[in-house]
């Protein structure tokens, strides 16, 4: 009996250990993507390379990739050659987490000279050389430095040659080396905690606790799956892509002991860097299925195993070397919505309508103006921001306004962004009428206007989707508003790629809303009135789309002006 309770205690402890590991990384990392946005991952593994626990961090994109990574390291490095003090590294998009900008570090954990397990962590770094972070490369060779699975530290000695090569190939060498150091440190912290736990419970290895975790997780996951009605359904979603519109297609089948998602029918590779390695497709497909079916079961080798994800080779969701993959998140973030198009037919009123999906990120490269003499204070600067549109309405509740799904990353404060470079965010607020109409309304997107400080011009690198393919509603719900972006001189801009903005001009962006759920005419009148009073919808929309009465409209507008609720 005591041993069952103490095993549960140890399982909780391992989850706490990986959370500590992740927290240490957030606090020491340099890349904004890690420390501000939470684009990182951390996990602990047994000696066989099976993932036992993974920190819940800002990105589901590492969910399965992390589970697969350690066995690659064991194979490439050779378990028999591993020693205490070793640290291994890679940024292989296919054996790591999907693009060169993710650095994965693995550390073997030894106890009394015996290999008992591994710690792994991954962080999205801001620059890895090459063309810079963007979709513009034609192959992975142009996307930056490639680090095959290799030793970063050999029995405690850092490979100085590797560090020199890294430093010589990237734009921000100090930051990158700082990030690599943070990755190694956080694994070390995990290792220390694990050793303490093994001492406390007098464990020589992790076999028994691993079996307990994996057996319970497998059993609990299978119970959830086997409680569902078996069946098969297909779903598809069209999105903008880079060169051509992309069809994402999936067939989901609920079977005994397994849920399969196969992406046959999905478009082929894009010539530009938005292709997705299979690991990343697996991560987001698996995340989508887990959210809907077994959300409370922690991620580990056994709880992920019953989700089988497949895709035809050379489709855009199973890109192989040397396809360009830097912006694989632009497509990857759309995978959950695609999966839900199929799953909705199998599990009615469970999954949300389509949402903004892809994060609304852009990078601004500022420099002194070149059309006229620049003031002496003008300088060069790179500023990357993370932003979100609206999420899809849920079967019983509205979508979330300007909140990321499926990604979980955070935006940066405007005041912090304006300290990072000579950029001015003129506007960042909710976008009324952008949520798809319905009994439950899609989350609204947001407006953002960006310009440079006096004396600067800039290149604007767009990473948006849903310009031509807005989020569709479900069960009769309306579409969310599409992405739009224009220069202040009226020029329409493209949703992806680098575009020049001259001195004095701004970029006005409207980020997409989520789709609605159910018929707008079925929406509770009190909610429609309140939406109008709070300005989530306009008077025209209240009248024409939701059919609100003139009396109600007048009441709501008056309440809006006086800061009252009309619920």
């Amino acid at each position, binding site marked *: 009996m005591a041993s069952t309770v103490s095993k549960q*205690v140890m399982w909780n402890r391992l989850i706490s250990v990986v959370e500590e590991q992740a927290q240490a990384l957030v*606090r020491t990392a340099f890349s904004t993507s890690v420390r501000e946005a939470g684009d990182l991952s951390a996990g602990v593994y047994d000696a066989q390379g099976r993932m036992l626990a993974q920190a819940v961090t800002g990105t589901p994109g590492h969910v399965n990739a992390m589970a697969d990574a350690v066995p690659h390291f064991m194979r490439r490095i050779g378990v028999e050659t591993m020693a205490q003090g070793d640290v291994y590294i890679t940024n292989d998009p296919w054996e790591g987490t999907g693009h060169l900008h993710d650095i994965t570090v693995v550390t073997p954990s030894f106890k009394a000279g015996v290999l008992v397990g591994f710690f792994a962590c991954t962080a999205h770094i801001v620059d890895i050389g090459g063309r810079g972070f963007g979709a513009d490369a034609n192959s992975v060779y142009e996307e930056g430095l490639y680090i095959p699975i290799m030793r970063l530290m050999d029995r405690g000695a850092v490979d100085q040659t590797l560090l020199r090569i890294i430093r010589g190939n990237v734009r921000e060498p100090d930051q990158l080396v700082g990030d690599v150091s943070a990755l190694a440190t956080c694994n070390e912290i995990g290792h220390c905690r694990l050793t303490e736990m093994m001492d406390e419970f007098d464990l020589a290895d992790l076999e028994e606790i691993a079996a307990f975790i994996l057996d319970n997780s497998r059993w609990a996951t299978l119970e959830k799956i086997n409680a569902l009605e078996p069946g098969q359904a297909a779903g598809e979603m069209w999105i903008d892509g880079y060169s051509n519109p992309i069809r994402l297609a999936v067939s989901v089948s609920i079977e005994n002991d397994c849920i399969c998602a196969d992406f046959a029918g999905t478009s082929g590779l894009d010539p530009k860097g938005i292709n997705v390695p299979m690991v990343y497709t697996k991560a987001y497909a698996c995340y989508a299925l887990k959210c809907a079916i077994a959300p409370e079961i922690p991620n580990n080798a056994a709880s992920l195993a019953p989700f089988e994800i497949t895709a035809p080779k050379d489709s855009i969701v199973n890109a192989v070397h040397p396809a360009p993959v830097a912006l694989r998140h632009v497509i990857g973030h759309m995978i959950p919505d695609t999966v839900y198009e199929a799953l909705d037919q199998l599990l009615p009123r469970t999954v949300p309508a389509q949402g903004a999906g892809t994060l609304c990120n852009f990078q601004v490269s500022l420099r002194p103006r070149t059309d006229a003499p620049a003031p002496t204070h003008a300088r060069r600067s790179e500023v990357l921001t993370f932003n979100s549109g609206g999420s899809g309405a849920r079967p019983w509740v509205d979508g979330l306004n300007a909140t990321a799904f499926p990604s979980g990353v955070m935006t940066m404060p405007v005041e912090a962004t304006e300290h990072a470079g000579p950029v001015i965010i003129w506007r960042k607020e909710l976008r009324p009428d952008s949520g798809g109409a319905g009994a439950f309304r899609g989350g609204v997107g947001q407006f953002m206007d960006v310009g440079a400080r006096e004396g600067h011009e800039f290149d604007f690198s767009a990473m948006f989707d849903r310009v031509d393919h807005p989020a569709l509603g479900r069960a009769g719900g309306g579409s969310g508003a599409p992405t739009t972006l224009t220069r202040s001189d009226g020029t329409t801009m493209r949703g992806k790629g680098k575009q020049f903005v001259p001195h004095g001009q701004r970029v006005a962006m409207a980020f997409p809303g989520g789709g609605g759920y159910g018929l707008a005419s079925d929406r509770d009148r009190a909610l429609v009135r309140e939406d109008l009073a709070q300005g989530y919808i306009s008077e025209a929309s209240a009248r024409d789309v939701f059919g609100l009465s003139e009396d109600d409209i007048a009441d709501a507008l008056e309440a809006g002006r006086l800061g009252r609720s009309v619920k």
Partner: protein
Amino acid sequence: MDVRLGVDIGGTFTDVVLETPAGLTSTKVLTTYAAPEDAIIEGMNRVCAQAGVQTSAIEQIIHGTTLATNALIERRGARTALITTEGFRDVIEMRTESRFEQYDLNLRLPDPLLPRNQRLTLRERIDAGGEVLIPLDPAAIEALADQIDEAGYESVAIGLLHSYLNDSHERQIAEVLARRLPQVTLSLSSEVSPQMREYERFNTTIANAYIKPLMKSYLGRLEGRLAEQGAACPIFLMHSGGGIISLDSAAEFPVRLVESGPAGGAVFAAHIGARHGLDRVLSFDMGGTTAKICLIKNQTPKTARVFEVARTYRFKKGSGMPISIPVIDMVEIGAGGGSLAHVDALQQIRVGPESAGSEPGPACYGRGGTRPAVTDADLVQGKLDPDNFAGGSIRLDEAASRAALESELGAPLGLDALEAAFGLTEVVDENMSNAARVHAVENGEDLSDYTMIAFGGAAPLHAARLSEKLGIRRCLIPPGAGVGSAIGFLRAPFSFEATRSVYVEFSAFDAGLVADTLAELRTEATDFVRSCDAHAPIEAEYKVYMRYRGQGWEIPVILTAQQAASPDMETLKALFEADYTTLFGRTVAGLEIEATVWAVNASTPTPPVETLPPLMAAAGSSVDVAGTGATRDIFDAALGQTLRAAVVPRDALATGDRLAGPAAIFEDETTVIVPTSRRATIQPDGCIDLSAEEEG
């Protein structure tokens, strides 16, 4: 100062402690929500009668309260509007644009403190250098004043972008509103929380505005009622940073009162630590609903600049609202005597954060509760005396506890009531120790060097097991543990921390700017303290938050008065690198350093504390006692078995008495559990010292 009164209004009880030259007298009165001052008056009269002291003899009242926190949690504030920069109306609603729970498809975000139509804008803009890009239009302010008047707002928060650098626009708006609408209370973000990051600053300012009318009227009423009762002495308020401020300052910045009760608890633990000459203390405060854990180094609780209140989702980080004020840094988790247990889909026992509260309470209260709480598990394991709980005021029903444990945990897991009880307490103890471990790691501390100080009703039952789990060798359980926060108020200094965001890149270090900033902050902080005490000496502590350029997290670096008066870049850099190494094991070569936030804490010195010699193994100073012969079966978690334990009433133990585990020391409010691994020694100040046996 001979006679002082400490008053802590908590969610369930109002604790009142009277200190006279003869010692402490305390009482607990049920909190009277409608008029919180009623409970204070009742408690004051009660302790005065007990101590034989006239209320007019009280020279000072120190007060802390959860009223501010509760008003935020329960959304019972004033009708409030925000005035902000055009284009940024939705900052508090958009938050960080992320979900605090990744796997919940039906997640609901907490409602912002003010709905969208109470957030008003003006066209204006200040840039990141503090320069005005768009000036304010006076006519637009007048028009907005009309709108605010018509809408009947009682309180207005003014929060503009980059106002921590340049407050001129906020002041311009405030002047117009003060002239036009004198009945409306105002809160300016450049005064309430002049720190960069608009979401935290705006939210803090709105919170201040939201509770200001309520707190102002309560504090005014309290002052009058106390005077009527003969206590016309000065009243001071405990703030979240662990010091006390004047009633007027508290009425102006009520958001600083949030979490003042727990802050008092940390001050209490720091005081006990000082008495026992301890440099490293883990304060562990476990009550009915939550447990709070705080690190105290060199008798000073650790502080932070931002914390989160009103978490709406299982105490999860991100599910509440950020408040950026100086605060004692603690972790609070949903683990208390009333926390309820269930079995989840993974066949694992989960405990909390849902709590049985006092109604219906744990199953053993016999008030209709059918789900097992932590208190039920403690009872079934023999850790509580059913006939002597809360001084005998509630008779605990052990059969009801057994039934709840068996049906909710035992049946699904195949455990009997005792096994289920053990599982439940192991899980809750592990939850608390994990929280303590993570907190220690975040602060670069190793808990094995720490001494635990445990207080709050449920802490003495769990302190020894927590010590075992954390590898902490010594734990002190002070007398008066049930009213620790109120005692802590009496031990707190007058203090006020002033903070400001000023970006300083070390490549362009401006010693004059740094010295001026710190001097201004010192003046601001000192003035607040001076308003409380016209004569006491005032000490200033200087803090600068630094990081490597490119990082997102700053670490606080402490400066001496000398270093603050003539700041030197190399010295600051060396201090930063030393602290960074302590936290993260190494520095990063070749990166530039920058400072973002500057803070000065002014305080009156705490009176010197007489250090007690530790009474432990010293031969002759302690005596082994075996108790009175009474025994009880108590489950020992570390050994995994039930053992026959000595049972001793606390008042039967004298200074120097030693009691080997397994044993239980019963008192009115709680029980101190001494497992086999520990030995209890009664200290001269009445603290029970639980030390690991091999040292005893």
